[in-house]
Each structure stands twice: as structure tokens, then as C-alpha cells.
């Protein structure tokens, strides 16, 4: 397993966001977490990426690294990239500067020096160019991020996360609010990343995409893992049918 959660619980006031969740995400596979709103999906990603500390339980990465000992930025350096439900580009920077700001190196390194480094190290520059092509942003590099559509901002988030060359990518609602053309770009990127051996964990309500793209599906409700397995197996679950009825069968 690339990521394993053992007995993880997290409470926000009177709400039990995660209730003794034990789950494992396979290496080099696309795992999809589905479930009704408020079922704890984003909290689970936040626990893995370090933006939320669980009350109890263990989170292990890459065969036994105890993630809870690492701050969020160190988890990213370990190889866990992520995007957010609401895209978070640096709005005042250009598309290219956003991507270059993510280049690894000096902890304080961002666009200006990163740009220079990328120019001097062909492999870095090549990598950035490839990522921009993969996310269909290569013709918009000079645009300010603030001028991008919602869907393009999501793609920019994805591009920026890929610059880290993560072993594992956590995608929070990568298709929500994204038009069909940009959704196809995201799907294509995910398929290519899976072929490249990356582990993808994504949250999505786009059930058609989930069922066709995911290798494993995890159904959550009220902070608990209800069931998991192959897409067709999970599809047979009653809660899944209740939650996504009309979408799944469309």
C-alpha cells in the first residue's frame, strides 16, 4: 500500500468527521473516494496531507513512514502532492510563475530564481513544459492566474502539484465546476500519471467518471468507510445507489 490509515478519528466540535477509519490506497492505482456531502472525504485527504491532525490513529506512507511525525510541507517533500476543492493558485502571478514557484530546491525559492534555475537546467525546464502541455496550459503561460476560468485554475493547481513529481497525488474534486473539455484534460492527465506509476487518490461526485477511471472505489458516509472494492462491486451497494441514483445509471 502507498498510504494506509489505521483507526483514524477526527472530531470537529460535535461532529465526528472521521470515525475509526481504516483504509489502504494501492500503489500505482487510481483510488476514488465517494460519498454524500459531509461524509469526511476532504477531512481524510487533509489528514493525509497534514492540514488536519487526527485525534487518534495512524497514517503510514510508502511502506511504513509515520506521516503524523511530519509537518504538511515535509509531507509534500516526501512525495505527497495535492490539489484543493477550491483551486488556490497565486492569483497575482502568471500561470508560468505559479508553476515555477513550485519547483523544489531552496525552501524559499519561488518564481524568479526558479525560473532562472529552470532555464539553466534543461531537465527542469523540460519537465515544466511537459506539465504545462499535459494540463493544457502551455498556450496560456503568460496569463495572470486571476484571469483564468475556474476549470483552468483547477488545472493550474494540478500542474503546480505535478512539479513536485509526487509519488502520490491527492485530488479533491478535480472535476467539480469544470467544463467537459477541461474534464477530459484532467482524465487524460490522470490516466497518464497512472501509467507513469503514480498513486492517485481522488474525491469526486462525478460518478460516471469515477466508475470508468478508478481502480478502487471507497464509499464513505458520516465519517465511516461503508465499503470499498472494484467499481462494479461498490456500485451494488445500497447507499451508493441511494446517494448517486440517477447519476450512476444515467
Amino acid at each position, binding site marked *: 500500500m502507498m498510504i494506509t490509515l489505521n483507526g483514524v478519528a477526527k472530531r470537529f466540535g460535535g461532529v465526528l468527521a472521521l470515525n475509526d477509519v481504516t483504509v489502504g490506497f494501492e500503489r500505482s492505482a487510481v483510488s476514488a473516494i465517494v460519498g454524500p456531502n459531509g461524509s469526511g472525504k476532504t477531512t481524510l485527504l487533509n489528514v493525509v496531507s497534514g492540514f488536519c491532525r487526527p485525534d487518534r490513529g495512524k497514517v503510514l506512507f510508502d511502506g511504513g513512514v509515520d506521516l503524523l511525525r511530519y509537518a504538511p*510541507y515535509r509531507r509534500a517533500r516526501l512525495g505527497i502532492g495535492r490539489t484543493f476543492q477550491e483551486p488556490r493558485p*497565486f492569483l497575482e*502571478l502568471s500561470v508560468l510563475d505559479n508553476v515555477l514557484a513550485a519547483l523544489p530546491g*531552496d525552501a*524559499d*525559492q*519561488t518564481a524568479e530564481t*526558479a525560473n532562472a534555475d529552470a532555464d539553466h537546467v534543461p531537465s527542469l525546464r523540460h519537465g515544466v513544459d511537459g506539465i504545462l502541455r499535459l494540463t493544457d496550459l502551455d498556450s496560456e503561460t503568460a496569463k495572470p492566474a486571476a484571469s483564468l476560468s475556474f476549470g483552468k485554475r483547477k488545472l493550474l493547481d494540478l500542474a503546480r502539484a505535478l512539479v513536485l513529481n509526487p509519488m502520490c497525488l491527492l485530488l479533491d474534486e478535480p472535476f467539480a465546476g469544470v467544463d467537459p473539455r477541461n474534464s477530459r484534460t484532467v482524465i487524460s492527465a490522470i490516466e497518464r500519471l497512472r501509467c507513469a506509476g503514480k498513486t492517485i487518490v481522488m474525491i469526486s461526485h462525478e460518478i460516471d467518471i469515477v466508475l470508468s477511471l478508478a481502480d478502487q472505489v471507497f464509499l464513505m458516509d458520516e465519517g465511516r468507510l461503508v465499503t470499498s472494492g472494484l467499481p462494479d462491486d461498490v456500485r451494488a451497494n445500497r447507499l451508493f445507489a441511494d446517494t448517486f441514483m440517477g447519476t450512476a445509471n444515467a
Partner: protein
Amino acid sequence: MDYLFSLLNYVAIYAVFALSLTFFSGELGLLSLGHVGFFGIGAYASAIVSLKLGLSFPLAAGIGVGAAALAGFLLGLPVLRLLKGDYFVLVTLGFAEILRTLARDLSSFTGGAYGLSGIRHASLPGVYFGTQWSQLLFHAVLLAAVFLVVRGMVRSSFGRALNCIRLDEIAYVSLGKNAFAAKLRALSVSAAIAGLSGVMFAHYTSVISPSSLGVDATVLVLCMVLVGGLGSVWGAVAGAAIVTVVPEVLARTLGTVVANQVFFVNQMLFGLALILIIRFRRDRAGRPARLAAVSSS
């Protein structure tokens, strides 16, 4: 002529102070009301070691700047890790008030409410800056050096990193960057610069007392920064000049008593500046901006 030189000396000292605040608060979007504390630490530390230990000015100034930087580092260790937005603003205000109280109550070191006097003017080996114009020259060189350092930092990868943190700290961290370390470094450097302005003040006026470290001093430097435009390096210098010179010009025009006791020129200027800034201030993307931190989310 001495009056003009004196005024310009104060402009230079306050411009250095304003640069320290505009660098930290402008780049990071974290409003600090505690920089007068670093100013005070620089002033007192330098004054104490030069008066009580007889250290030379360069050594005393180095100790003053180093003490302020250390204070910034120690304050930042818990505060930058735990607090954001309005809570950060309140703690920095409290920090400055605690230091002012300590300066008043630790009278065996600080001279109590009367402060320390007889502090020697700045000097370098073989050079004593004893006249107004020589002090102005010295302060102008220090201001130019600080200006170049701050402008260099703003344009460097360090400044870009702070800018990214201001824009979205969570996104910055998710890219494997250590935002806390960058913020701590920024506060330490900024505190060092504020400490330098305190050193300049103490050795120029030859006096430092708790009355120089009150909330009014915080408001004064905040006005300088805001008048010039938060985050603007040139603006900090211009703001220091405007906020220092305008009340003096009005006082000379109207008479000191009329200006300060009838029209309350300083307070009116501060109030007017704050109203205009709050009404019209925009962030760098052109949106209405808050005075407190953008990173409070």
C-alpha cells in the same frame, strides 16, 4: 539651518523604522503593532552598553541590532506558529506594551520613567558625528543601505516566497515550502532593521525613555507606512517624510501652540490618513483590502 538638518535627521531615522514595518507587513500581509518594541530594544540595548560598559558606537549598535533581531526571532517562534490575522496583531501590540512597561520598571538598567540620557552621538573609528549635518550624512548613508537591502530582499526569491505566503499560505505549504521558517526569518530581519532605527534615534537624541515607545509611536510609524502605501519601499521613505515634515510645517505656520493644542495637527493627520486608507486601499490585485492579515483565513 540646524532646524532643517534636525528635521531631515528625524525623517531618515523614521524612514528606516518605516522600512522595517513595510517589509514585514507589506510582504507578508501580517500587520505588526509591535515594531516599536524592537525599536525600543535596539535603542535601550545600544544605550545601556555604551553608557554602562563604555562600548564604542559600532559595537553598541551591533548589540542593539542583534538584540532586536533576537527578540523578533524569540517572539516569532511561538506567535508565528500559533497565531494569524487579528490575533497576531493583538499579540504584537501587547508585546510592545510589555516592553514599554519593562523599560519603565527596570529602572536600575533603563533609568525608569526618565529613561537614559547622555548617550553619545554616533561615531566610527576616527570620525565623530557631533554636528547636525554630519549626523544627517551618517543617517542618509544608513537609510540608503537599509533601502537597498529591503528593496533587494523584496525582489529576491525570499521576497517572492513571502509574497506567495501572503497570497495563499496553505497553497505555499502544499508545495513543500516551509512558510513558518520564511516568516520567522522575515520577522527577525525586520526586527533588526527596526532595532537599527532605535539605535539611530537613541544616539541622535542622546535620550531614550519609555515615552518614546508608546502606542502613539506605533501609530506614527503605521501612518508613515500606510500613507506611503503598505509594501512600497519608496512609499515608506515618502511616508516618513510626509508624516514628519507636514506637522512641523503646519506648526511653524500656525504656531506650535495653535497647531498642537488647538488643531491637534498630528492627530488630525493620523485620523485623516487612516480614513482615506481604509476607504480606498486596494490589494495588489485591485480588490478592496483589509488592514489586518490576508492570511487570517
